[in-house]
């Protein structure tokens, strides 16, 4: 929930372990402690989507957690993130948008040791969209009091044996019926591609076929739809930039249009189950769907420049659930 700096200071003084999101100037006022944080001024609070530069969004790590370990990761150290994670628990990862760790994690996570074996959730920190390119997104490691625009911060949380963490994604987008797009290489940019198996230029395809580029490219991962959002299209240079990498060997299609985001979201949200311990949603959903002042179920959390459910996602709501072990 959104809290004042003084309230967050009190919670840390009480020994709580916290996951924080807020303006850089607010996070700088916090004492050392068991917390990690990232910069962002957009949130989904109990009352709905809100842009706040005066409050910090607080997610409290459950008190039944048996251990909490806050670490910073450089690009070189990041591939060990899953091996460093507890055997039973979860890891929350925050990385600054556009940083070397963001790029490396997005492209290389599927190759990391123990990838997908242990739950990793998190988000990409950002800034006010009016200040993109003018200010640097940051992350904070509470144990050291250090901030960084280059490295990642992680909170590894160990759970008792009778608890089990589970990641869930809520994606309002479905694969559309259009052309199949594939890429020879992986990365955050693409020029040449194959459309239904035939060589083509993606930028010219998008502009020529009047695709709504606010809709993400979607890929079907054994039933889970994974989005890659378009950042920009340079028709003259024939170059498309993405907010997450496309991968060689994956077939993509542009998503089917969503006419009513809130209705689609409420329909996609599973009924029942435990409340989310952590959740985050995408800045593009916030902007394109006009979520300011609107609620998305009971879910709250930061509105982010990228979501992490094991790998980096776009335009997706991520939830971390904790269930009683069977």
């Amino acid at each position, binding site marked *: 929930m959104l809290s004042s700096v003084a309230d967050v200071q009190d919670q840390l003084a009480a020994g709580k372990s916290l996951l924080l999101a807020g303006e850089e100037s607010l996070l700088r006022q916090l004492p050392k402690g068991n917390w990690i944080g990232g910069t962002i001024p957009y949130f989904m609070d109990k009352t709905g989507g809100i842009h706040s530069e005066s409050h910090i969004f607080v997610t409290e790590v459950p008190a039944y957690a048996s251990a909490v370990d806050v670490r910073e990761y450089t690009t070189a150290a990041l591939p060990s993130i899953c091996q460093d994670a507890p055997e039973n628990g979860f890891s929350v990862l925050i990385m600054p948008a556009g940083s070397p760790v963001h790029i490396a994690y997005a492209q290389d996570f599927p190759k990391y040791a123990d990838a997908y*074996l242990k739950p990793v959730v998190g988000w990409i920190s950002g800034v006010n969209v009016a200040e993109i390119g003018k200010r640097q997104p940051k992350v904070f490691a509470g144990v050291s009091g250090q901030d960084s625009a280059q490295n990642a911060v992680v909170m590894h949380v160990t759970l008792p044996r009778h608890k089990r963490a589970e990641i869930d994604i809520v994606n309002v987008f479905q694969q559309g019926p259009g052309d199949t797009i594939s890429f020879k290489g992986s990365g955050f940019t693409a020029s040449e591609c194959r459309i239904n198996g035939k060589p083509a230029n993606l930028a010219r395809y998008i502009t020529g076929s009047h695709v709504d580029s606010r809709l993400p490219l979607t890929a*079907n*991962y*054994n*039933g889970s739809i994974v989005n890659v959002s378009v950042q920009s299209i340079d028709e003259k240079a024939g170059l498309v930039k993405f907010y997450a990498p496309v*991968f060689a060997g994956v077939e993509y299609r542009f998503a089917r249009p969503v006419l009513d985001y809130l209705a689609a979201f409420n329909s996609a949200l599973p009924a029942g189950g435990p409340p989310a311990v952590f959740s985050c949603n995408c800045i593009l959903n916030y902007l394109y769907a006009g979520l300011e002042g609107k609620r998305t179920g009971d879910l709250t959390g930061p509105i982010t420049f990228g979501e992490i459910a094991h790998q980096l996602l776009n335009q997706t709501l991520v939830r971390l659930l904790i269930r009683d072990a*069977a």
Partner: protein
Amino acid sequence: MIPPVTHPIWAQVITGSREIPPSKVGLNMLIANVRRDYKLNPSAACLRRLAARMHEFFTNYGAHYQAELEHILERDTHA
């Protein structure tokens, strides 16, 4: 009972000749990625490496994926 890492069902899952129904997001992503890896590098060494990943997943988390395990083993049971 988790089949040993050398059991042919892991190769069948990786090559797509044996389907696993849609499951939780972690397993779905793992399956999609091992299939993609094998598509890009269809070698015996790659298949062995990917089979080890699938085997490790079910060894560690099989208790939470009983339905998926039963589905994987179904054809062997009926054989």
